[in-house]
């Protein structure tokens, strides 16, 4: 298909949705055939390695958020709470428990059972979550322990002795994971398959970073929360595949075209906003409308950084030594993800000028303490350094019982009134 001019506009959303449907359809087929699949998470999926064993990858986080977007999350949450899980734990976990109790039946298709679970320590709930499959199915669980930043601002890179010590630890764990994969699949490890997948990931991440950078344009060509979530779905679900690489190359072409021709995601962009946290999936579209109705556009989002599996950095694997390079990529990518959550104020410092921020929206959610615990303090810290208004909201990413649309709207409306006053004050 040839795309020119305005025909490009909107292609990324259409193609992304189509790829997403195809991916779920493929998982549905795997489930129906009773074939093995690997359960992984967005922050450090090692999909490149698992795909080299032809293991389909399932992202429980994506399955769960899909139930919220499709307004059926409460059915799954109820099942898990009836089973004994507390209302006060991560609702992603509970939606997955509900899914497993229903034999994998999901609104987007059937989800296969886990033949293997691979997780990093980027989120402690990953570890608790995998223990559930371990107990439920006897699933082999491999934790890839990826040490992160030990103190603010200290981020060693390849070649630094501290980094190399961490890399040796991760290489050892990846080698041990390969042994488990060989046992689970009955296949021998093929390093050339891994190289091929790493090359695909390189192409994806190079384009992904360019796409994110293009949103510095005025007006912003895409919405970092709504459109960004679709990009994240492809970047995670199809990481390492030629389809994902092509998708992001095409997306870059589209966004470059929009930027060059000043085609914004909003007709009239009045306020450029950063989003910090996890989206409000139970009212996903409506949440964004509360801002877009005022001319507010999310031009950047820490979610796009920490939930993209390191893709936001544009990290490029060196293909000569794939395992060592995969280890380095994991260390850098997972560290960046964790830093964007725990040191969100520092992440925002990097966004302020480049993205021309008018305001920042901190969205704290009950379900995710990893992301939310430090947000109020990050906001306090950010406000001491920048004369940029910010809004602190609390709701949830899954549980509609914790989402009060009317209260949110009141707060958002007041925020925009404050933004207008602030702008007028600066102009005078």
């Amino acid at each position, binding site marked *: 298909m040839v795309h020119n001019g305005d025909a490009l506009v909107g292609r990324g959303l259409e193609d992304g949705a189509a790829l997403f449907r195809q991916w779920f359809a493929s998982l549905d087929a795997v489930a129906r055939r009773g074939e093995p699949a690997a359960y992984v998470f967005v922050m450090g999926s090692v999909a490149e390695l698992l795909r080299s064993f032809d293991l389909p990858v399932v992202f429980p986080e994506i399955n769960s958020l899909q139930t919220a977007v499709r307004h059926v999350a409460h059915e799954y949450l109820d099942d898990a709470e009836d089973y004994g899980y507390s209302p006060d734990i*991560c609702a992603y976990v509970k939606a997955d428990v509900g899914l497993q109790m229903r034999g994998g039946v999901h609104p987007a298709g059937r989800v296969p059972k886990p033949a293997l679970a691979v997780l990093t320590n980027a989120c402690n709930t990953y570890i608790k979550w995998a223990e559930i499959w371990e107990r439920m199915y006897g699933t082999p669980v491999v934790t890839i322990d990826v040490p992160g930043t030990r103190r603010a601002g200290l981020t060693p890179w390849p070649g630094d002795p501290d980094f190399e010590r961490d890399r040796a630890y991760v290489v050892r764990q990846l080698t041990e994971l390969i042994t488990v994969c060989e046992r689970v699949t009955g296949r021998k490890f093929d390093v050339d398959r891994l190289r091929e997948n790493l090359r695909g990931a390189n192409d994806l991440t190079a384009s992904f970073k360019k796409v994110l950078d293009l949103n510095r344009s005025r007006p912003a060509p895409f919405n970092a929360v709504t459109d960004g979530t679709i990009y994240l779905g492809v970047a995670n679900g199809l990481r390492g595949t030629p389809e994902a690489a092509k998708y992001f190359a095409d997306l870059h072409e589209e966004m470059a075209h929009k930027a060059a021709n000043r085609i914004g995601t909003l007709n009239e962009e009045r306020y450029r906003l950063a989003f910090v946290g996890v989206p409000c999936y139970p009212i996903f579209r409506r949440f964004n409308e509360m801002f877009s109705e005022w001319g507010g556009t999310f031009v950047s989002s820490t979610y796009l950084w920490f939930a993209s599996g390191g893709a936001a950095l544009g990290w490029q694997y060196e293909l000569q030594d794939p395992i060592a390079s995969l280890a380095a990529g994991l260390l850098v990518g997972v560290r960046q993800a964790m830093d964007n959550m*725990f040191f969100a104020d520092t992440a925002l410092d990097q966004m302020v000028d480049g993205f021309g921020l008018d305001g920042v929206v901190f969205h704290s959610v009950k379900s995710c303490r990893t992301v939310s615990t430090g947000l109020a303090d990050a906001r*306090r810290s950010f406000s001491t350094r920048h004369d940029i208004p910010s809004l602190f909201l609390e709701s949830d990413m899954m549980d509609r019982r914790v989402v009060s649309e009317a209260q949110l709207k009141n707060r958002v409306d007041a925020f925009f009134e404050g933004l207008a006053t602030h702008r007028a004050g600066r102009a005078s």
Partner: protein
Amino acid sequence: MVARLLGDWDALSLDDLLGLARDTVEDPDLPTVGRWRDQGGKVVGHFQVYFPEEIAHAAGLLPVKVRGAQVESRQADARFGSYLCSIIKTSLELALSGRLQLDLFVSHPICDAARNLAAIWGRNFTYGSRILYLPQNPNSTGSAAYLRDEYQRLRGDVEEVAGRTITDAALRESIAVFNENRRLIRWLYGIRRDTPWLLSVDESYALLALGGIITREEHNALLHRAIGLIETRSAEPRDLLRVVFEGGFCEQPPLELLRTIASSCYVVDDDLLIGLRYLLEDVPSGRDDDPWLALARTYLDASTYTPVQHDLRKPKERMLLERIRGSRAQAAIVSAAKMCEPGLDEQVAYSRALDAEGLSYFVTEFEERMTGYDHLQIQLETFIENVMFA
């Protein structure tokens, strides 16, 4: 000479000694830490659960267990959202209010909330704030070497604060002090297990918790004295249910809650402040041992369990069953701090495992700032009656 932070306690009776322990442990102003600082000492605060305190001790610093307190979080509340456990907030409150003054803060990412603490601490205080990444994959053959390197990294931070280097010989001496401490704590728990009428869970807890806020040398001396008095205590066995209390690995229940439980049953084992007795065996401290590697290996290979560590060798429900059988308990209190995600997750697995074994259990939640216990007492007594007279 042992630095006395508790004052003159040598001649105290057991009741007075226990009273002193209770008052000190419940005092949110942390007077013992203040006395250490008044003497010119420096302090490393470490958040729950486990921390290799020997390293701080070997540098001449006082390692202090940061475990929250029963205080109103006036300043800390503004730095957190709504849906959090209490210990996260009150720990920061202790520091923001000036009650807890540190020279270095270290936390380990035990849970999603706690892993944010180091960053928050770093934004609010000028002294160092560090994250110690204890291995989350203890089953990897690379974990011991990795952890030894982590301890070396921590050594650098500690030495910087102390202004002196930590020699291997100094670390071995510190390990010996802590080995002795763990032996005494095991002895204390042995009394609870074998003669629970001599020592209740709240008394034992007060003695244990002192270890986190005084020097280990003083704690050892005090435990020696206390154990001697406890073993000669005049008390008669009662016909009470023997239970294990589970759920105190991080946030601590109020002493009053433990007293309430102790009035109805014998708590013959628990996981309260489990980090203080996380290592189950002596850490090798001989001249030929690499003390850094020995600390790392003991943590990995000779340690107990908590909901915040995943180790294929230690499935937590199996470990709980072993704790119950090892202490000859008849039932379990499966508790969790409010909003404690790992604890609440584990309640489900524990309940299923106990059901499968036909063991009775009582599920409850607590909060460090709770004040009413009547309802809990009624529920617990009903549970006990059901177990004992079923």
